[in-house]
Structures are given as structure tokens and as C-alpha cells.
């Protein structure tokens, strides 16, 4: 996913999925879906990830933007955007954060001034996930410069080839391109790309935030498959590997003497077994919570702020899961790239997982939300 070539392979995969009707099974048929229920979608996700299929480069679009489009877009916009998004023909990136507005989203300052049918954009966006490869950005911009904080914001859909928009790639922690910074200098975006009403961007955006933190972004199938792979790794550890192949738990074979004998070799593994089990248990706990939630949603209830503790849970589980795998790998855990165990997938996964507790509202913000909105503690 992380190189231009890798990205093209991913796009190809999205096209194949879409052709088979498996890109967006929960969507209406007219947009390439199968109208399946939330529970069916959860099951689909379990199968998808268990099969070892790759991550979805279209995730920002189909998980974050699409729910907003279904709720707020005009019929024309739905017609225009949904199918190409589902088909992987148009890849979307979220352009919300600004250098001075990360957790504090209401502080954002990129201006979009109305001039007839057009908005004139000036300002800067940063940390746009997958922005390096995206065709479109969905952004929150300030259309009323007089209004403060949450007021006066609008939700815009912005093509990458917009004149006056410069896209600068920013490498992620693994050194691979992924993020983008956007610089707007009198960039023109047409009013047909306004999502929801002008000035209502905050309300529109919060609907997306709900899906980002809740079920749509991270189905349990992903973590169940990860935990299963972790269990398999733990079960295979202790078997020596041929030279040149990673997987030898080097430190576990370090010399021991006298009564230290009990602390060596296979018993080292024992101390990690419980961590492995904990990850497996939590992946299943997330599963049961999601099924229960899906049934509640199906009976007309809404998700609300509980989405925040889901986000804390899966993001921290994802870090633990990969950290445990790296510990199991011992001294070879630090290896990266194709010569590492599983082609470097564990290290890649670890680096990817580290973003979880940060993005889509840091887990500190999420804990505030749980305390204030779920438990009802006073804001200040």
C-alpha cells in the first residue's frame, strides 16, 4: 500500500472486489452493494479478514465519508460519488486537521470565501490519511470568518487537481509516503461540492466522527484475524528457523546457569502466553459487543457516545496485539522488510497500529467523551 506501485495493486484489488459485489455489501444495490444487514456486514468482515485479504485503501471513503453522503448529500451527489468510491476509481482522503487544530477541531481556520457559485480557499490542512494517493479530499473549512469555533464551518468535497491546491506528501513513521499536507492558495471549489448546508459543517462532520469511532471504521473481524495469527505465531514459536530466516527467538537461547535454568528457552514463551490469550479474548469481546450493538441499532436505537469506548478499545488492542507478536519474535522482532517474519507484516502492523490511539480524536479526548457523555461527569 505504501509505495506508488503498491498503491496501484490495491486499487486493482478494490476494482475486483467491487466487480464481485464485495466492496460495500452493506450499501444499497444501486450503488454496488448488497443491502445486507449490519450483522451480515460484521460476518462479511470476519470472512474478509480471516481470508488474509489486504487492508482497504478506500476505507476513508467508504467508512468515513459515505455515511455522511448517505445522510446529507443531494441525490446528484450520491449519484456522482458513491459508485466510483466503492469501485476504487476515486480514492478519498480526510482533510480535517490543521497545524493548529488537531484534537481541537473547532479551532480550524482554513477559509472558504463565497464568490458566486464558487468557494475561494486559503489555508493549510495536514495529516490527511492516505492523502499522498488520494483523488479527492473531504474537508471542513470556515465559510464564515466572523463566526467562532463550531459555527461558520462548511463541509466541502475537493478534487486533488483543484487549481491553487498544492499537495505535499508527508512520510509516516515507517518512512513511507501516506499522509499529505494541503496548501490552498485562492483555490476554487464549486458549490456543487458542498455537502450539507453552508455553515452546517460541524453537524455534518460530527455524523462522520460517529462512524469513524464506531462500527464502520473497525469491524471486529480485523482484530479477530489478527489475534488468530498471533495465536498461530505463539503456537509455532520455539521451533528453530533455518539461518537467514527470521523467527529465531535469539535472546531466549541466551546462556543461563545454575538455578536460572528455569527461566530459559520454552518457559520464556510461557510468560507471553497470557498476553497472547488476552489479545484473543479482547478480540472476541469486541466481537460480542459489536453484535449486540448491531442488534440494538437494528431495533432503532442509536449508537451515541459509546462509540468512543469502542475506539479506545480496538485501537489499544491493535497496539497490544502487534507488540505481543514482536515480543514473541524476540531479538528478531525489530526486523523489518521482506526478510523479516511474515514479510515484515508484524512490524508494519505495529507501526500502523500506533496511529490508532492518536487519530480520529486521541484516546485522551475519547476518554473525556466517555466520562462526560456516557457517565455524565461535569465538563469542568
Amino acid at each position, binding site marked *: 500500500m505504501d509505495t506508488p506501485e503498491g498503491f496501484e495493486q490495491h486499487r486493482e484489488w478494490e476494482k475486483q472486489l467491487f466487480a464481485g459485489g464485495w466492496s460495500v455489501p452493506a450499501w444499497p444495490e444501486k450503488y454496488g452493494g448488497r443491502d445486507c444487514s449490519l*450483522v451480515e456486514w460484521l460476518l462479511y468482515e470476519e470472512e474478509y479478514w480471516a481470508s488474509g485479504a489486504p487492508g482497504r485503501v478506500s476505507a476513508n471513503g467508504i467508512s468515513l465519508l459515505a455515511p455522511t453522503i448517505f445522510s446529507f448529500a443531494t441525490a446528484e451527489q450520491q449519484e456522482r460519488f458513491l459508485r466510483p468510491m466503492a469501485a476504487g476509481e476515486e480514492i478519498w482522503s480526510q482533510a480535517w486537521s490543521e497545524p493548529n487544530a488537531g484534537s481541537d477541531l473547532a479551532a480550524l481556520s482554513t477559509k472558504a470565501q463565497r464568490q458566486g457559485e464558487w468557494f475561494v480557499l486559503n489555508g493549510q490542512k495536514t495529516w490527511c490519511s492516505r492523502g499522498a494517493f488520494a483523488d479527492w479530499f473531504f474537508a471542513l473549512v470556515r465559510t464564515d470568518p466572523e463566526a467562532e469555533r463550531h459555527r461558520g464551518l462548511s463541509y466541502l468535497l475537493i478534487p486533488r487537481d483543484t487549481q491553487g491546491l498544492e499537495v505535499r506528501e508527508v512520510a509516516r513513521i515507517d518512512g513511507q509516503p501516506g499522509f499529505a499536507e494541503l496548501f490552498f492558495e485562492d483555490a476554487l471549489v464549486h458549490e456543487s461540492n458542498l455537502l450539507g448546508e453552508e455553515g452546517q459543517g460541524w453537524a455534518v462532520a460530527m455524523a462522520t466522527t460517529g462512524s469513524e469511532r464506531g462500527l464502520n471504521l473497525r469491524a471486529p473481524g480485523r482484530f479477530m484475524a489478527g489475534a488468530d495469527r498471533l*495465536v498461530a505465531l*505463539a*503456537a509455532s514459536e520455539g521451533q528453530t528457523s533455518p539461518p537467514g530466516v527470521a523467527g529465531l527467538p535469539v535472546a531466549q537461547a541466551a546462556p543461563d546457569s545454575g538455578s536460572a535454568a528455569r527461566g530459559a528457552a520454552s518457559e520464556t514463551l510461557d510468560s507471553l*502466553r*497470557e498476553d*497472547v*490469550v*488476552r489479545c*484473543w*479474548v*479482547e478480540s*472476541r*469481546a*469486541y466481537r*460480542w*459487543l459489536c*453484535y*449486540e450493538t*448491531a*442488534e*440494538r441499532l437494528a*431495533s432503532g436505537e442509536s449508537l451515541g457516545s*459509546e462509540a468512543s*469506548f469502542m475506539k*479506545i*478499545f480496538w485501537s489499544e488492542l491493535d497496539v497490544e496485539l502487534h507488540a505481543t507478536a514482536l515480543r514473541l519474535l524476540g531479538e528478531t522482532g525489530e526486523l523489518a522488510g521482506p526478510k523479516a517474519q511474515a514479510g515484515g507484516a508484524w512490524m508494519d502492523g505495529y507501526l500502523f497500529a500506533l496511529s490508532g490511539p492518536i487519530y480520529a480524536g486521541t484516546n*485522551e479526548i*475519547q*476518554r*473525556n467523551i*466517555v*466520562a*462526560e457523555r*456516557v*457517565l*455524565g*461527569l*461535569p*465538563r*469542568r
Partner: protein
Amino acid sequence: MKFSFGSDQLALAETLAEVLAKRCPPELVRAVWQSESGYSEELWEALGELGVLAVAVPEAYGGLGMNQVDLVKLLEESGRAAAPVPLLEHAGVGVPALAETTATELAEHWLPLAAAGEVIVTAAVPGSEHQGDGNTVVSLVSYAAQADLAILSCQGELFAVEQQNYQVQELESVDGSRRLGWVEWSPQDAFGLPGASSESVFERGVLAAAAQSIGVADHLLETTVAYVKEREQFGKPVGSYQAVKHHLADVAKAMGFARPSVYAAAWAVSQDTEKLTQQEQQKFVSAAKSLASDAADLAARKCLQCHGAIGYTYESDLHLWLKRAWSLSASWGDAHWHRRRLAGLLGI
């Protein structure tokens, strides 16, 4: 598998919650902890009238013929109220074992009485017994002195032992609701329980402890949230401080994830082993108990901390629930024990 409860199940649980709210205030819990009798006879009677004790009793014996899924929310409610009665032992473990046995005479005699709450049936963790003097067996049993019948195991076999056939040496637990004792008995003076399995007794006991734990933890969280909204320091409620918020958010998260797993485990153990193998059921149960125990331990730790010194006094009711949380989290295998069992079940 459904991921929600039926309306019958919810109605019974709701009724129980109302009865407990009315008839089982903290003052009752406190009084029973310090009592000679060891449990609340009035409350026990009320539970009998309500049908709560008849849930797992087959209809043929005057019961409701329901299963673990029907029981789980009742146990949760009893935990929330810290109800000082042997509900876990009786309805959660003892009665289902009697309902399972093919020794019909035994069932015929005991189950109608058990359904009505006229007797107490207790049970011990199978496999926890050890060899006593001579031919006797010694088991660690809760409510042994209060029970009329105890379901005990010896070398993998289950037995029903009447009170007059066992000797109790009472012990003191930090949790006044746990009337523990070493019970000395002999298989020769006991009825065999063909058809009932010690494995099932164990799974049901674990599940019941998990269900009560989440009720206990829920109560701890609720009372602590109420307290930190009221209590002020440095000119504002302590609940407005981020450290306190995050402590309690962590508890809420742990609870939110433990609960569905406990319900899922209740579903699992009510399945036929042909549909869901014993090993698969055990995975559900151990996952649930490890999550519920950890959640209860976390709730106890964080809720005491958020209360501060007032929670550290005997005058405050908090300690009644703290101690319930500790003993339930440790009994029927603690979180560690169940993760170790899972490691084996997962083949690692």
C-alpha cells in the same frame, strides 16, 4: 444465536431489580454480614415467591424450566444489590446439577423444595477437594452451614450430600457474604449424581461468578460517578478532573466489554455439546470470567481511589461491594487461571 434477551427474560430481571432495590438496601447487606444466620431469610423467601429460585428447575418439578441465559441477568442483578443470599450456589450451580441427574428420586425430592426456596442447595468447585482423615474428603464450600444439601465432587464424580452427613469448620472471609467453610464428608454417606457432570458444574459456577461480578462492578461505578459529581475539592467537583474522568472511563470501558462476553458465555453453556463442543463452551466461559474478573478488580481499585479516604472507612457502604468484587473475581478461577486454561484450549 441472538444477541439480545427476550422480553420474558428482561421482565423477570427487571422485577428482581425492583424487589432488590426495595428489600435489599445496604443496611440489610451490612446487617446480614454481621449476623449469625449468614444470609437473609426474608430475602430468600421473597426470591422464592418471585420464581427466581425456580428458573433452572424443570417444569415437571414445579420450576420454570429455563436455562443459563435466563439466569445470567438475575445473577447480575443480585450482584448489583450485593444480595446476601446463596443465589449463585443454589440457582446457579446446585439446582442445575440436580436437574441434570438421572437419579430421579433425588431430583423429585429436592427440586420442588429448591424451586420454592424451602431448602438451600450449595455446591463446591469440582476438583478443589482434597483427601481428609481416613476415608473422608475435605471440600471448600460456601454457605455450607446454611445449606440443606451440598453438591460436592470426589475424583471427578459428583455427589449430593445432606447436611447431617457433613461436618463444617467455618472460616472467615473478608467478604461477609461468603460464608465459607471446610466441609468434611464421605462419598459413602452421599448420593451419586449420575448424568450430572462435574465439568458442567464448573462451567456454570464460573459463569455465575462472572455474572455477579459485572453487577457488583456496575454498582461500584454508579455510586462512584454519583460521589465524584457531588464531592468538591479546589472549588469544583472532583469528577471534573481529567484524572478522575479517565479512571472511570476505563472502568466503563472494561464493563462495556465484559458484559456482552458474559451473555455470550451464558448462551454457549446452554447449548448442546453436539452443537457447540465442550471445549468451545469452555473458551466462551473462560473469556467471560477473565474479562469480568479484571473489570471487577479494576472497578474496585479505581472506585476506592476516586472515593478517597471516605471509601476506606467501614462506615461507607462502598467496602461491601469492594469485598464482593474481590472474592468473586478470585473464586471459580481468577482471570489468570482462566487465561491459562484458554492458552491450553487455543493450543499454545
